[in-house]
């Protein structure tokens, strides 16, 4: 009793603390995690497995992995492992290693389901034969070589076993596995008498009934100077080494989906999502990639050069190389090697495995206004009307958890939101949408139909003893549906029908939060690893994919709701490889400080590189109150995030854009309007991502692969291939150093001033904007009319901004469809290619499009064009259009600096030519 009292007093005391910080010791470090600690102690060359029985079967190159000599170091290596190498179109090699099912292992190890898309299997190349070669200098060691693609081969070295991709020409390696002999595979086995498999951490016990089952191996990237990817971490874009000479004591990069309260802005620590996909890039201008499809906790070391200097295997040194070390708690080896060679090729290869990013609805590419919480219907109406009063466009108003009846999702607080349908209709009348939150924790309340239904059907995840797992989240005692099970996903999807979700209307979309899953009283604020899913799969085996399945089920719900015609919009906090197919993600609960503004750029870049192109950070920062300057800078940067949403914690002051004085309102309005003028460009980029995986927001080196100065630049980023943007990350900044890559010039988006490429420019900075440039040689489509939301912009005319390169040429594209349905899949779109050369601007179709639009082009702006010409001739029709000097942007007092073709009046859907006379 006394003890309890003390604890109780502590609760009150802690609740009274207002200053919080990341509680590092509540999360497991590598040396508190047995599999990680063990793996990190392994020495190069420790693996003695050799490939045996190498043959071609079922179109794959297969082998058995057995210890070279029985009873050596790998004592637990009692049974042979199966290995298979498959090859797929476009330079993708898949390597699988698992326990041999014919040898009756204790349990089938978990293979992540429903991530690799079914179309991928159709791209498999059926191998007919393998050639064998002797390795130079090796004493007779053999390798089996198979075809991968034009110019590339997949190689399996037998003794010791090693797998790699190489270029045929010159036998240059690209990506390899187990070149350092660190491979380790703990096979499932029977517990020995003196063994204790349980793991304890801060009062939580993991029963670990199947004992150790981890896997680790080394992966090397050749011709590589930097590696990137493996989100989600708040850290630099180019991954810093975590081990080796010159590296201070560091944790590996951890991939374990966690709800980390106030995460730190520079840490290899795992946060909300995990994508075990790494991309390398080097001076050669070439990239390669490696993806491990495994949803258990993963830890990844990036090894500093020279890490293996003592006692290791000496590798060929003529190629620069980055070695990495991958460790996972469970699962199997199911890995994909991407040969590249260009950065965009690697991304394309990755999405051909995990799927293309979904095409978003047009509205979701606009500005979103969120807060925990908009209190009631009156508050909603008030905020909505304030946007109109201040002539600031926005598309979506969001409701956080407080809109529900006691955190029972799919319900409404009857006092605060008595008329949800009418509220949504009012927004919809202005072309705006609403988003409500639906989290995976279901309140354990017998009177709550969802809980009753789920528990009666046995749809909840079970604890280690087989009872419904009972955790704690917003509603109090909660359980979690087992989203691994397709039947349960489909049950969940039904809950979004208009009949089941009472108070929902067609303009309502969904936000999935807390789906790591977050469990307030669980180990590391998540679910115990020994909780059980469908088919006895342990939570430890699929943890990182739980949020992915939840996101998937929700998106399928919205799809079903709209009879498969309305593109879903679902924002998720947790994610895994493949989440790009289901919607957007954001970088979770960031903080209102400059460091978090800064780190949002590498975080968004990393997500884009790994397929998750539709992403952004909370503008303004979730925790804390941003000073007005920070908020303005955040809007200026956030306007270029693929996903652009303002959000705030409920203890913060209101921060809607009109609350900081007229000047700041004007600055934020201007930032948001820039986004809206660029919506045609953004939408075109989303379409590019939708067909190729190439992200909307890209690292500089993706567009300038050979420009070394760009390799580790994560202050600036490219929006598509045409715009370069750099944030202002400090208070009261007067100057900014901006590196502009390439040989061509760049035009300031505001002033039209030209800057030379290939150098760092020290620029003066004003409060009005952040540095942003259009690359010479590109054409950017805009809509310069300002409206309440994207909905009213549909019929508005276009402006084309042409930035001419040194040979007075440029090109660009425009993609248009109905912005909401899937008719574009059947050709209902407009895709134009604009080319400017020899003083002629031509519009021609890309592909076969069948969509009509009454939109015209009202203005063509030419940057880098020598003024002088007075008229242009428009074909067909041979009408004349005037040429004059006009402003580059509208909505303020902007000087007439740009050569402007006035009212050419051509239709955007048609072929035409404009000749400057």
């Amino acid at each position, binding site marked *: 009793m006394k*003890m309890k009292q003390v604890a109780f007093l502590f609760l009150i005391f802690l609740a009274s603390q207002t200053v919080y910080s990341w509680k590092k010791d509540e999360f497991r470090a590598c040396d508190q995690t047995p599999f990680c600690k063990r793996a990190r102690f392994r020495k190069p060359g420790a693996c003695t497995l050799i490939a045996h029985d190498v043959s071609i079967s079922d179109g794959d190159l297969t082998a058995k992995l057995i210890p070279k000599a029985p009873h050596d170091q790998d004592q637990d290596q009692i049974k042979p492992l199966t290995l298979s190498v498959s090859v797929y179109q476009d330079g993708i090699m898949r390597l699988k290693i698992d326990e041999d099912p014919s040898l009756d292992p204790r349990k089938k190890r978990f293979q992540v389901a429903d991530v690799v898309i079914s179309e991928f299997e159709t791209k498999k190349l059926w191998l007919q034969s393998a050639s064998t070669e002797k390795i130079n200098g090796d004493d007779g060691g053999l390798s089996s070589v198979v075809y991968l693609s034009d110019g590339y081969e997949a190689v399996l070295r037998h003794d010791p076993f090693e797998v790699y991709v190489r270029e045929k020409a010159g036998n240059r390696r690209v990506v390899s596995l187990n070149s350092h002999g660190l491979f380790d595979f703990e096979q499932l086995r029977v517990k020995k008498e003196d063994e204790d498999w349980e793991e304890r951490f801060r009062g939580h016990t993991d029963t670990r009934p199947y004992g150790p089952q981890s896997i680790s191996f080394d992966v090397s990237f050749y011709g590589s100077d930097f590696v990137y990817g493996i989100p989600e971490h708040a850290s630099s874009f180019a991954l810093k080494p975590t081990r080796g000479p010159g590296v201070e004591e560091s944790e590996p990069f951890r991939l374990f989906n966690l709800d980390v309260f106030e995460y730190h802005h520079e840490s290899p620590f795992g946060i909300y999502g995990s994508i075990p996909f790494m991309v390398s890039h080097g001076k050669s201008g070439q990239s390669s990639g490696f993806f491990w499809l495994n949803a258990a906790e993963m830890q990844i070391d990036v090894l500093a050069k020279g890490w293996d200097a003592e006692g290791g295997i000496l590798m060929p040194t003529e190629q620069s190389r980055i070695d990495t070390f991958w460790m996972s708690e469970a699962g199997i080896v199911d890995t994909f090697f991407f040969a590249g060679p260009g950065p965009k090729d690697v991304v394309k290869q990755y999405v051909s495995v995990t799927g293309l990013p979904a095409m978003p609805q047009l509205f979701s590419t606009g500005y979103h206004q969120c807060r925990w919480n908009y209190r009631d219907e009156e508050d909603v109406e008030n905020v909505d009307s304030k946007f109109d009063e201040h002539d600031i466009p926005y598309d979506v108003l969001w409701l956080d958890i407080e809109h529900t009846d006691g955190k029972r999702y799919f319900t409404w607080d009857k006092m605060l939101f008595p008329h949800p349908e009418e509220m949504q209709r009012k927004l919809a009348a202005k072309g705006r949408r609403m988003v409500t939150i639906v989290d995976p924790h279901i309140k354990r309340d017998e009177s709550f139909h969802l809980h009753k239904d789920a528990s009666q059907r046995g749809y909840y995840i079970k604890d280690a003893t087989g009872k419904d797992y009972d955790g704690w989240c917003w509603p109090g005692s909660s359980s979690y549906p087992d989203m691994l099970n397709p039947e349960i996903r489909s049950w969940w999807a039904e809950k979004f029908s208009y009949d089941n979700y009472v108070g929902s209307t067609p303009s309502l979309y969904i936000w999935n939060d807390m789906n790591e899953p977050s469990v307030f009283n669980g180990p590391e604020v998540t679910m115990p690893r020994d909780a059980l899913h469908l088919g006895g799969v342990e939570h430890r085996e699929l943890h990182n994919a739980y949020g992915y399945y939840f996101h998937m089920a929700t998106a399928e719900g919205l799809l079903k709701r709209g009879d498969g015609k309305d593109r879903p919009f679902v924002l998720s906090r947790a994610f895994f490889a493949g989440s790009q197919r289901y919607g957007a993600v954001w970088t979770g609960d960031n903080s209102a400080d400059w460091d978090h503004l800064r780190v949002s750029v590498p975080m968004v870049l990393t997500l884009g590189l790994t397929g998750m192109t539709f992403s952004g950070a909370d503008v303004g920062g979730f925790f804390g109150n941003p000073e007005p300057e920070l908020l303005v800078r955040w809007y200026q940067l956030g306007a270029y995030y693929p996903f652009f949403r303002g959000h705030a914690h409920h203890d913060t002051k209101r921060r809607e854009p009109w609350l900081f004085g007229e000047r700041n309102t004007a600055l934020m309005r201007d930032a948001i309007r820039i986004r809206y003028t660029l919506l045609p460009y953004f939408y075109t980029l989303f379409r590019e991502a939708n067909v190729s995986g190439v992200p909307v927001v890209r690292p500089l080196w993706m567009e300038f692969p050979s420009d070394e100065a760009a390799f580790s630049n994560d202050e600036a980023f490219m929006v598509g291939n045409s715009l370069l943007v750099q944030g202002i990350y400090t208070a009261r900044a007067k100057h900014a150093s901006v590196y502009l890559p390439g040989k061509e010039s760049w035009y300031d988006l505001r002033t039209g001033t030209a800057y030379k490429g290939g150098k760092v420019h020290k620029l003066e900075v004003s409060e009005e904007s952040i540095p942003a440039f259009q690359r010479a040689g590109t054409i950017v489509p805009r809509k310069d009319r300002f409206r309440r939301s994207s909905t009213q912009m549909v019929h508005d005319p276009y402006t084309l901004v042409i930035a001419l390169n040194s040979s007075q040429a440029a090109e660009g594209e425009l993609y248009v469809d109905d912005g909401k349905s899937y008719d574009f899949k059947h050709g209902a779109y407009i895709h134009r290619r604009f080319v400017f050369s020899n003083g002629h601007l031509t519009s021609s179709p890309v592909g076969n499009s069948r969509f009509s639009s009454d939109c015209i082009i009202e203005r063509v702006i030419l940057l880098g064009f020598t003024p002088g010409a007075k008229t242009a001739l428009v074909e067909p029709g041979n009408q004349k259009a005037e040429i004059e000097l006009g402003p580059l942007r509208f909505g303020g007092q902007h000087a007439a600096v740009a050569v402007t073709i006035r009212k050419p009046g051509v239709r955007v859907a048609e072929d035409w030519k404009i000749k400057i006379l």
Partner: protein
Amino acid sequence: MKQRLSLMYLSFILIISSRESSSSIPSNSFIGIPPQDEDYFKREIIKCKNGSKKFTKAQLNDDFCDCPDGTDEPGTSACPLGKFYCKNIGHAPSFLYSSRVNDGICDCCDGSDEYDGKVKCPYTCHEAGKVAMESFKRKIEVYQEGVILRKVEIGLAKRAIARDKAELSGLKNEREVVEKVVHQLEGQVRKLEQEPQEKDDKMREARNEKVENEESGPDKNVDSQIEPMKASDVEKQGQAGESPSDQNEKDEHESSEGLSREELGRLVESRWTGKKSGEQVEETDPVKNDQEEGGPDAGYEESVADNSGRSSTAQYKIGVQDLKNSSDIATPSGKSWLDKIQETAQNFLQSVNLFSIPVANLDANKIRKEYNHYTAKLSDLESRISSLTEKLKFDFGKQNEFYLFYDRCFELKQDKYIYKVRPFRNATQEDGSSETQLG
């Protein structure tokens, strides 16, 4: 009049239906221009209002933005800074942002902002005008009612102020008297304290008695009760401040392992919510609370709450006490009563003084008792004086019409919240279990 209006309405409809449907260039080039500005636009060459540029008559409302300030496009959406004028005959004219022109949403009640044929806007100015007129009338009525109410309040305030001022001056007199008495008694007490050491034991006894008396006397002063509580608050705060924050974290770490699953859940949750944990625990375990209040740690909880900045409840309670106390004392103070005090005190002092050496223990106790009694009285008087003086310092409006609001509490129930506004004091929001101070 009515005929004229409907005629205009008709011609207006004709205008809309006759324009070309596929173009958004208005057929009437003067659309969106307020009547007083029309002359400005009747020239062949027109200046942008900010002087930056000139444009031709043909460029007026040609759906292309020539003036950065929007002068040339009052009737289209081409210039972001443009303003569209709706005539709204039957109601008040208005200006719209150019972003509203032909956006598919009817903004003007005369529908003139939507002329590109994509939507048909009903003419609602007459209805809107009626509604506006009604609400304007209602406003006038409310105003008139208010004027009457105000007069009443002013009258009442006058009386109340007079009463309070009278009381204040009475109290001040009283204070003078009591101060004197206290001063005299103080002299006596000091004398007593200089008595030889041998009396110590007995004095201690006497003091104990005094304490007992104080505790048993319910009408004793409030300050002396509040004082020690405040002191303990300060102490507790001091203690909390001393422990470094990393110590706290450590403690939390240690304690979190001993927590029940629910307590741990609430603890972690409270990081995000900032405040809910404690309150919910309070709700769910009232028994435990009661025990603690009775225990030796009573008061601790409240003082912790003070640290957190969630002190609203505590402050509120004290506020209530203040009010009660002042109203207790506010019994009209007649002169006779004052004289009586003076008399009794004098008599008492004299009676004690008769025995110059040594003062009997009984008398010593009596003196102390009296001394305490009058000190308490004095501090009561002072607090009432200061609260009255404070009150009178406020600005209660030109004619002090808000004077009586000082002691009033206005309550409003809005959904699940109860809002309480105490003019010149504070405003709170309560939702059953918790209360938030509003700025």
